[in-house]
């Protein structure tokens, strides 16, 4: 009898531990934790470009650390190699991420008075992901470049 009881109880324990329902509930609780302005990366890009084509370009120099030990403070620097004249200038620099709840970090509208297409800030990254700089030129074309950042400790709570 002892042995039978023991096996029974063992089976019950293992059944509870592996029950997919319990795991699903945990995942759901995680997914429910949402910020006020959550937007996916694809939706954010569409909102900015309006469905226009975005070309990969090496004109943009994006400086981010390869490995960020603290995801709460990740320095991002964007430099655009493009003239800043009255008729031909960098109109906007958008800093985006691919996996945070809210994919947008900052939209910077520049004017020819800036003299150079440059923007730097610090962002939070929740997990290992890509930081993307999407640049709008004054003729209405979009160029972008992205770099992945390895995050060891997430910074988005």
């Amino acid at each position, binding site marked *: 009898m002892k042995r039978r009881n023991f096996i029974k109880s063992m089976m019950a324990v293992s059944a509870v531990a592996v029950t997919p329902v319990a795991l699903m509930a945990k995942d759901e609780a995680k997914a429910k934790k949402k*910020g006020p302005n959550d937007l996916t990366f694809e939706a954010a890009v569409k909102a900015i470009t309006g469905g226009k084509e975005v070309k990969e370009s090496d004109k943009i120099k994006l400086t981010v650390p390869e490995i960020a030990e603290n995801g709460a403070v990740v320095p991002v620097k964007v430099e655009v190699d493009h003239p800043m004249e009255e008729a031909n200038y960098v109109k906007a620099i958008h800093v985006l991420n691919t996996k945070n709840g809210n994919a947008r970090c900052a939209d910077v509208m520049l004017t020819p008075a*800036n003299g150079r297409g440059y923007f730097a*800030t610090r962002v939070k990254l929740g997990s290992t992901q890509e930081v993307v700089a999407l640049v709008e030129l004054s003729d209405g074309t979009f160029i972008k470049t992205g770099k992945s950042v390895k995050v060891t400790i997430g910074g988005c709570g």
Partner: protein
Amino acid sequence: MAEARKSMIKIKPKKYKTGDIVKVDFIVIHPMDTGLIKDKKTGKIKPAHYIDNITFSFDGKPFTTMKVWETVSTNPYFSVNFKVPGKGKITVDYTDNTGEKNTKSKKLKPKD
């Protein structure tokens, strides 16, 4: 939130002439809460509180406007370039999602 937030405008490099391109750094002490983190003391979720609009202007003329979200770090730092047109004043206005408004300015004194 009656007291003014600590903020700072830095011009780099320190010596510049008319026509030079300088870096304008703006730093402000702000919590930038995402609305996801629990307060350790009370156990309640802190409401979202972040800067959302920033305007850099020179003598009243805006030259850079930014829209910012909570994904920017605590005590944020924003840096842009600016071509010095002469003597004047750089002003940075910022508002956050709770409607708080603040202004910070610094004089530009190019050495010719």
